[in-house]
Every structure is written in C-alpha cells, then in structure tokens.
C-alpha cells in the first residue's frame, strides 16, 4: 500500500492520459526543531501578534499589506488573491521533451515522486517511462499546485518518474557577472597534468548514504543525552486516569483513620510486632496523629 499522495490527477501526453499521484520526495521530519520556552518558568511562550495601538490582537484580524514605498502599504485582501488563483485542472500537461542532459540543475526546485495511480494506469505509465528512457528525454510540462501554476520537469527515477518543480527565470541569477574576473590565457601543462592526476587518483563512486548533516547529528546527540540524563524540563501534568495529590491523600487517610491496625493476618502470621512494642498502650488514634506529625 502506497503512502498518502500529496496530489492526484492525470499525466497528459497528447491524447493519452494516465492517472498518477505525487509524493514529496524529500522530508525534513528528521530535523530537530525547537520551541521557545521562558527561561524561568519553562512554559511554552505564546507568540501573539501585537498592534502598537491596540495591544494584543487576534490572528483573524490581520490582513496582508504590500509595502510599495517606505511606510506606504497597499492592502491585498483574500478576495484579490482568489481572483488570480488558478483552478486546479488536475492534469500534468506535457508540452515538449528535451534532452535529459540539457536540464540545467540550477532551475530544479522541489522534487516529487510521480507514480501510476491504480492498476489501470500501470501499462500507460510504463509505456511513457520506457519511451522516455529509450530516447534519454526529460518532459517539460505544467501543473497547478496549491493554486499556482508551476513549470515542471519529469525525469526517470528507478521504475517510476520524478517530477521536479522549476524555478522561473527571474528567480535564478546569471553566473556571468560572478565569473567575469576569470581570465582565459594559456595554462602551464605540468600543473594541468598534475591536477588531472590528482583528480583521477581521487575518483570515487557516488554514494549518497554518506551524506549526513553533522550539525543535526550532534544536536540530536545533545538532545538525547539531556533526555536520558535529566528528565525533560517540561512536566506536563498527568492527564489520563485518576490522580491524587500525596498530601491530600495523606490527610484523607488520617481522617479516615488510615493508620488502622491491619486486619488479622492469615494463620501464618500470629501477631503484628507492633502490638508487642512497649508503647502499644497508646491508642490507635494517638498513634495516627503522631505518625502524621512525623511524616508531615
């Protein structure tokens, strides 16, 4: 059973369409995130929006503003945004195929796995997959995700496909201005040979299993050690079941005559040793009081 999809619809190639689903291909759930607590109370603080005139306000009272000049805002309401929201067509439309090697990685944004949705889709999906692989092509297309139309590129991924949203040209900086100081004169042959030798000596196979976030790893170790060593700072009041405060219970037991002599023991037991002690003459009530004073 496949995990829940983030999107379901059709992959459309000319007149052929195939039911597909999208799944996020990356996750940040393994990253440690923090909550803000007050340093003394260790309560989780509430981040409430505050207005300089009104003080604390509700989130529902907030509207969006665009600062078009310093301190000059134009309010953009939800109704404005709705106008430009594109209705989902539930379709990934493939527009053209490009050489897979030509795909510029700088445009790649968020990756998704693209899988056939249901057994009916299987054959069509595999046909598209095989044809793309044979020609080493990547498909450029469009899809509406969260109300926005996105350009996407579809490439092979194992026996399935990968859909990657693409950045728009305006979001990607041109590299030329950053590299303009690099000259193009002749190089020393010896130095080049040496560099090439070093490269060939250090060749390795791509192994992404070695990629780990050392910072996250060490952070996790610190957090685990703290959890193990001390108790977590937060003691949430127990929520489930019956809970009694120990002082109340102790008082209650004294009021109930809680330190009663226990009922007679079975034949094995003859007499409680307490009865033998010198002070056994003391009345039960008095003993209770005394015990209570001592315990309290």
């Amino acid at each position, binding site marked *: 059973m496949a995990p829940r999809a983030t999107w379901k619809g059709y992959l459309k190639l000319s007149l052929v369409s195939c039911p597909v689903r999208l799944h996020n291909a990356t996750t940040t759930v393994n990253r440690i995130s923090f909550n803000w607590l007050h340093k003394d109370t260790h309560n989780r603080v509430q981040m409430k929006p505050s207005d300089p005139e009104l003080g604390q306000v509700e989130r529902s009272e907030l509207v969006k503003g665009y600062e078009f000049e310093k301190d000059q805002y134009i309010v953009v309401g939800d109704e404005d945004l709705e106008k430009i929201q594109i209705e989902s067509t539930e379709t990934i439309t493939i527009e053209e195929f490009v050489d897979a090697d030509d795909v510029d990685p700088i445009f790649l944004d968020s990756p998704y796995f693209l899988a056939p949705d249901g057994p009916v889709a299987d054959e069509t999906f595999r046909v598209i997959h095989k044809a793309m692989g044979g020609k080493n092509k990547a498909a450029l297309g469009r899809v509406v995700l969260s109300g926005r139309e996105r350009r996407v590129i579809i490439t092979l991924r194992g026996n399935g496909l990968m859909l990657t949203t693409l950045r728009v040209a305006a979001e990607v900086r041109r590299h030329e201005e950053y590299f303009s100081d690099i000259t193009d004169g002749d190089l020393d042959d010896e130095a080049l040979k040496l560099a090439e030798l070093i490269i060939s000596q250090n060749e390795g196979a791509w192994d992404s299993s070695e990629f780990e976030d050392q910072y996250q790893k060490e952070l996790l170790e610190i957090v685990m050690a703290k959890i193990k060593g001390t108790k977590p700072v937060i003691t949430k009041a127990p929520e489930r079941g*019956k809970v009694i405060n*120990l002082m109340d219970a102790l008082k209650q037991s004294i009021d109930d005559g809680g330190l009663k002599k*226990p009922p007679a023991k079975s034949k094995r037991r003859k007499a*409680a040793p307490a009865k033998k002690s010198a002070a056994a003459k003391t009345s039960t009530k008095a003993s209770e009081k005394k015990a209570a004073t001592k315990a309290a």
Partner: protein
Amino acid sequence: MPNLVSDADLAAIWVTNPDRVMFGDDGPTKLDLVLYYARIGNWMLPELINRPVTLVRCPTGKLADTFYQRHANEGMVENVLQIDIPSNKAEEREDYLYIKDAKGLFALSQFGVIEFHPWGCRVDKPERPDRLILDLDPDEGLEWRDVVDAAHQIRAELLELGLAAFVRTTGGKGLHLVVPVERRTGWAKFKDFAQAFVEALAKREPRRYTASVAKSARRGKIFIDYIRNVRGATAVGSYSLRARPGAPAATPLDWNELSSVEDPRDFDYQTVPLRMASLAADPWRGMNDSTQRITNDMAQKLRIHK
C-alpha cells in the same frame, strides 16, 4: 530527630493510578505504597540520601514485571540526581542514581519504585565505604529462630573485634547486620575484612555457617553473604518495601526486640508506620554517631583465627 519531610514535599507529588492493585489479589494499592513512603520518609531518608541507589521498579503492579534499575532512563523523574562513578568494568564511567531529599523519595515511589538498594558509601566519597553489611541468608529448611540466634552470635563476634553492629529484617527470612564504620578504607580492604570475618566464622562453625555462594554448600546452613561489601554491590535499604506479596519492609530493630519477633514478614507496609509511631526512640539510635573503624589489628586477629 530532624524533620526531613515537609508539606511542600508531599504536595508536590501527584499519585497516578492510585487504585492500581500491586502484587496480585488482596495486595496493597499503589497509593498504599506511596503513602507508606510518605509516612516513613523521616525515618528512612538518613540512611538513603546521598548514596548511589539501585531501584526495583514494578510500574504495572505485576510481580512478573519487576525489574532492577541502576541508571537513569528517559523520563526519569525530577529530584533524582546522578553521580558519575567509574564502573567496575574497564575504564567506563557510569552515572548512578541518588536522591538527596524527600522529594526524590516520593517522586520515585510515585514512579513505581518499590525497593531501594543503596550502596554502602556516599556520593561525596564513593571509594570510601561506611556501611559493612553481613547478609544472613538461611537455607530453606531453617527456622526463623535459627537466624535470630545466629544474628546474636555474630553480633557478639563483631563486638569482640571492637565493632558494634545494627540489625534489620530484610522482608524475607534473612537478617542484615549493618556495621557503620568511618570512611577510611577503600573497597578492596573493606571486602577483604568482611570475607576474612565470615570465612573465619564458617571455619569455626562449619555445620552452622557457610561463606560459599554454592547452593550445595548451603544445605542446612546459614549463608553469610559478605559479597554485599564488594564495590558496586547493594543490599536492600532500611525501611524499603519489598516487591513481594504482602509488601513486607526491611525493618531496623533494636537488638532487644529481635527475639520477640515471631515472623519478620509481619513488618510490612501497614504495620511499620504504626510501629514507628509508637516507638519511643529510633531502634538504630547512635548509628550516625559511630566512630568505629576497621583496623589492621582486627584484620590481624582474623588471620590468627584462620
């Protein structure tokens, strides 16, 4: 005696699952056991605080689910501290648990801890033990009377060496003799002394005592367990309940009381608080003022006996 338990200590504890029945039908409830420690805390704490302690927990109430715990786990309760003591194994260090006040005791009992087994040393000088323990463990066929007689005899033997011993029940058929000593010797000498003492005794009265752990050697005899004095070993502490049917308590006694005890299991979670309320004085008074120590002279005497 100093007041080690305050209202605030009690009020800080919320007992979850108070009605859970512990150790089978007719057993005490969890609240009964937590209340026991609330009542007995003032007596118990002096011999428990600031010592590394091994815990016996029974969070579910089922005897089958009872387990020992020496180190903190995730979710260990507040007011329980840890001390880094080198472990006996190689060079590794381990964090052992200890408590320093009533809050720690109550928090642990609420946490499902039934038994408290402190080390014979304190956290400020863990390499200098101060409580020598001889654990009298009778073979099955023996009577309680035999154990009581043995305790009296061993007490006399220790006195002859110059050491005053205190006695407590263990919650079972055995007895502990506890000898407070000043913190002068290290664990190795401490244990050697205990071993030499027990072996000398077993040699003189081989029909009555054995120093051997082996079951076969113990038939009809009292095994005097000196291994409690090995570094890292523990013995059930004074006033600790036992995770057994009836929840008996390890109970310090005055030597004068010992012979009148008919069944040590009569000391339990119900009777011990009553007993303490009616006692005129601490049965172990003088324990903490003791200035006795294990001397070379004593060790010499034992070697001669051998």
